[in-house]
C-alpha cells in the first residue's frame, strides 16, 4: 500500500485511534493534577470516536447510525466535562489544591 493512499484503508484509522487511546492512558497514569487527567480522558474519547467513525465508514450498512452514535458520545463527553470541571473547582475551593496526591482525606 503506497503511502499516499493510506486514507482509503480501515486499518490506518484503527491504528491511529489506538495510538490516541494509548496516549490518553499514558497521560491519565502520569498526570498529577485532576485537570490534566480530565484532558487525558478527553484524548481517550477522541481515539474511541475515530474507531467508531472508521467502522461506520468502511463496514456498516447504514453510515448514519455511527454518526448518531458519535453525536451521543459528544453529548456525554460535554456533560462529563461540565460535571468534572465543576467538581474540580469545588475541590479547589475546599482544599486549595487540585493535586491528586494531596486529596487524601479518605486514606486510612
Amino acid at each position, binding site marked *: 500500500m*503506497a*503511502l*499516499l493512499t*493510506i*486514507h482509503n484503508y*480501515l*486499518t490506518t*484509522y*484503527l*491504528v*491511529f485511534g*489506538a*495510538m*490516541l*487511546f*494509548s*496516549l*490518553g*492512558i*499514558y*497521560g491519565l*497514569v*502520569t498526570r*498529577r493534577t485532576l*485537570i*490534566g487527567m480530565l*484532558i*487525558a480522558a*478527553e*484524548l481517550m474519547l*477522541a481515539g474511541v470516536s475515530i474507531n467508531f*467513525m*472508521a467502522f*461506520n465508514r468502511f*463496514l*456498516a450498512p*447504514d453510515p*448514519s*447510525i455511527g*454518526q*448518531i452514535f*458519535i*453525536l451521543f458520545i*459528544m*453529548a456525554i*463527553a*460535554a*456533560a462529563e*466535562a*461540565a*460535571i468534572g*470541571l*465543576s467538581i474540580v*473547582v*469545588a*475541590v479547589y*475551593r475546599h482544599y486549595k489544591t*487540585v*493535586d491528586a*496526591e494531596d486529596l487524601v482525606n479518605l486514606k486510612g
Partner: protein
Amino acid sequence: MNAIQAPELLSADGMAGIIFLIMIAVTLAGGFIAATAERLIRALAGIVICFTGVAGFYYFLNSPFMAMMQILIYVGAICVTISFAIMLAAPEEKRKVGPTNMLSGPIGFMVAALIFGAMAALALRTKWPVLAKTAGGSVREIGIHLLTTYSMVFELISIVLLIAIIGAIVIARGGRT
C-alpha cells in the same frame, strides 16, 4: 516523501494523501503535547490541535457534519470550559513539578505501549467483513433517524445534558453565599 510510489503527486488524490499525512503528524503531535506537557495550559493547546486534526479525520471519513460538530463542541465548548477551570483552579505559582512517583512514568509508558501494540495487532490481523451499503449517511438521513428510530435516546440525552448543567451549577456554587 516517496514520490516514486505515488504516480500522481499533484493530482487531487495525491494532494489528499499529502494532506492526510500532514494531518496524522499534526494530530499526533497535539496528542503528545496534551499527554506530556508540564504546564496545563500547554496541554490544553495541544488538545485543541489534536481535536482539530480529529475533525479532519472525520472529513476524510465521509462525514463533514461530524467534523463541524467536533470543532463546535470539543474545540468551541469543552476546551473553553477546561481553560476556565485552569484559570480558576490551577494557579501557576503553586505548581509542583516532576512526576508523582518514580515508577509512574515507565509503568505508564509500558501499559500504554502494551495496549497500543495489542490493539494495533488486532486491527492489522483481523479480516473485517464488509457489508453492502443500504444508505448514504447524509445529514438528512441523520436527522430522520434522530427523530424516528432514535427519538427516545435523543430525549434521554437532552435530559442528561439538562441534569449535567444543573448539577454543575449546584456543585460549583456550593459554599458560596
